């Protein structure tokens, strides 16, 4: 039986599985893994185990009590290193708990370690990690996707029951698709960003990765419960959703017009569509004329926010300092130049360019305006339909080294995932089959804001019909 929250929770409640044994069995697996999925396996989990045991003994166990989870290296857990897999933050110890870690701890979950990711969450393969790439557990010559590739590989290889990642342009859904797991981008503003090392603040969302849709739902419900300490968090009473599925799904017209979409990805998408039609769902092609512009908009807004957010990493306040410069200006430049990874430096310079005098109107302002148009298009379509349906990624997992020197081709991996971030809508990636080479494929549903429940229902339909 699969090690899901649901199954393990039953065994914990019945006493068949002891919390401590379960936690240490995962610690052992995580310590001995060869995928480079974990940056660190925590050695101080006994306090968490005792707290979980107490919840259980007092009859207050939640579904997450005693469940081993792992967190991405950009999520702060007080007293532990949170390094965003960047040399800039090699020794950065979290001074406080992020809201998501606080809620996980309160639920009695056991946080066993932190996972590998692209430097500063910038990348689509984990190859930008300062500590080397994570290997895809289903084919170790391939990338697990990124930037939350360590977290998805950990779930796929059962090194943790569920994990947390963060998604700015696809960083939960794209690696979930590459590793054959479920990944949810929650509605922007439903999960507190307090204690997440910021990348693009109008885009970043923390979300779950899991083996099943139900597990993703359980974890999402826990981490979205708190409203604290994030100025863009939306009050629970303002999170209004439609109650019922209409069984109507939209597909962006001419979705495969763009080159570079793998034939097996197209076939799998059509198969899932047909099987869902047989179950009573209707699919309609709709006009979303600017859906395809989202990626270009993203590569303006995101680097602009990156260049501003990362200004705080200057060799003075956090992390590391390079050189013994007597001049403050040189100290900034030398530290930042030496410690940020290549992709991070590329994005900072690009962000600086689109925000600079003379280019601000042509790039940044234009992108912000276009973002509003994309938002409105998605909102309008989702008034009539339950979700917008796409493959999660244009191709299955690619080879390690295949795209690392070609940034634009790497960016295209986020073609289908970026629009949801731009519009701040929720989206789920669900495993939907495998290629002839046995590589996982995934499909994505983008929902109306706050309609995660519909996405879970649709995800479960795909789970019931997917072909392996």
């Amino acid at each position, binding site marked *: 039986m699969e090690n899901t929250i649901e199954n393990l929770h039953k065994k914990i409640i019945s006493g068949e599985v002891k919390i401590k044994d379960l936690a240490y069995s995962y610690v052992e697996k995580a310590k001995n893994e060869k995928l480079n999925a974990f940056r660190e396996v925590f050695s101080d989990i006994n306090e968490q185990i005792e707290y979980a045991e107490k919840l259980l003994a007092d009859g207050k166990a939640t579904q997450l009590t005693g469940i081993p989870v792992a967190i991405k290296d950009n999520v702060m857990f*007080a007293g532990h290193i949170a390094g965003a897999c960047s040399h800039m933050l090699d020794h*950065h*110890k979290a*001074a*406080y*708990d992020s809201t998501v870690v606080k809620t996980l701890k309160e639920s009695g979950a056991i946080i066993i370690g932190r996972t590998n990711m692209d430097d500063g969450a910038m990348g689509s393969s984990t190859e930008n990690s300062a500590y080397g790439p994570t290997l895809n557990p289903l084919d170790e010559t391939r990338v697990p996707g990124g930037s939350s590739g360590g977290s998805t590989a950990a779930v796929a290889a059962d090194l943790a029951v569920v994990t947390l990642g963060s998604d700015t342009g696809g960083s939960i859904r794209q690696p979930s698709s590459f590793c054959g797991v479920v990944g949810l981008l929650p509605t922007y503003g439903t999960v507190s960003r307090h204690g997440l090392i910021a990348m693009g603040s109008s885009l970043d969302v923390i979300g779950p990765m899991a083996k099943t849709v139900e597990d993703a739902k359980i974890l999402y419900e826990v981490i979205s419960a708190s409203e604290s300490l994030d*100025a*863009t*968090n*939306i009050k629970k009473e303002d999170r209004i959703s439609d109650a019922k599925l209409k069984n109507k799904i939209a597909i962006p017209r001419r979705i495969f017009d763009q080159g570079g979409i793998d034939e097996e990805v197209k076939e799998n998408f059509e198969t899932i569509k047909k099987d869902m039609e047989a179950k009573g769902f209707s699919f309609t092609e709709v006009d979303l004329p*600017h859906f395809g*512009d989202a990626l*270009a*908009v993203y*590569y*303006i807004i995101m680097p602009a926010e990156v*260049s501003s957010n990362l*200004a705080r990493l*200057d*060799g*003075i*306040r*956090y*992390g*590391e*300092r390079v050189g013994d*410069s*007597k*001049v*403050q200006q040189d*100290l900034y*430049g*030398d530290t*930042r*130049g*030496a410690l*940020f990874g*290549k992709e991070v*430096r*590329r994005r*900072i*310079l*690009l*962000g*600086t*360019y689109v925000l*600079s005098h003379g280019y601000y109107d*042509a*790039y940044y*302002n*234009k*992108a*912000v*305006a*276009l973002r*509003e*148009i994309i938002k409105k298009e998605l909102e309008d379509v989702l008034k009539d339909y339950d979700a917008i349906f796409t493959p999660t990624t244009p191709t299955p997992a690619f080879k390690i080294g295949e795209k690392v020197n070609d*940034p*634009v081709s790497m*960016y295209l991996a986020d073609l289908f995932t970026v629009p949801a971030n731009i519009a701040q809508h929720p989206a789920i990636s669900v495993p939907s089959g495998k290629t002839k080479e046995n590589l996982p494929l995934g499909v994505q549903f983008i929902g109306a804001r706050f309609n995660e429940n519909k996405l879970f229902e649709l995800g479960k339909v795909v789970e019931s019909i997917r072909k392996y």
Partner: protein
Amino acid sequence: MIDSKTLDHLAHLARLTVPEEEKEQLAKDITNILGFIDTIQKVDISEVSKKEFAQKNVAKEDILAPLDSNYDLVEAAPLHKDGFVQVPKVIE
């Protein structure tokens, strides 16, 4: 097209020292990315009134509450002494 002069200017604005041997490739990469994002120049945005979104505050109101953890942010600085962050002289 990003030339070496523009790249140096951006690097200065961003306070980011770029090693000499990386400059050519970096300028090329950024030029390629700009070529890719330039597709948005074709899009007509006249239907969106700038005012409408530029002046919308999305942040919720602040609520005063006691801090429940013992922040020690000076400890997070790479160089510190007696509770102060150490920095080089700004003025000689």
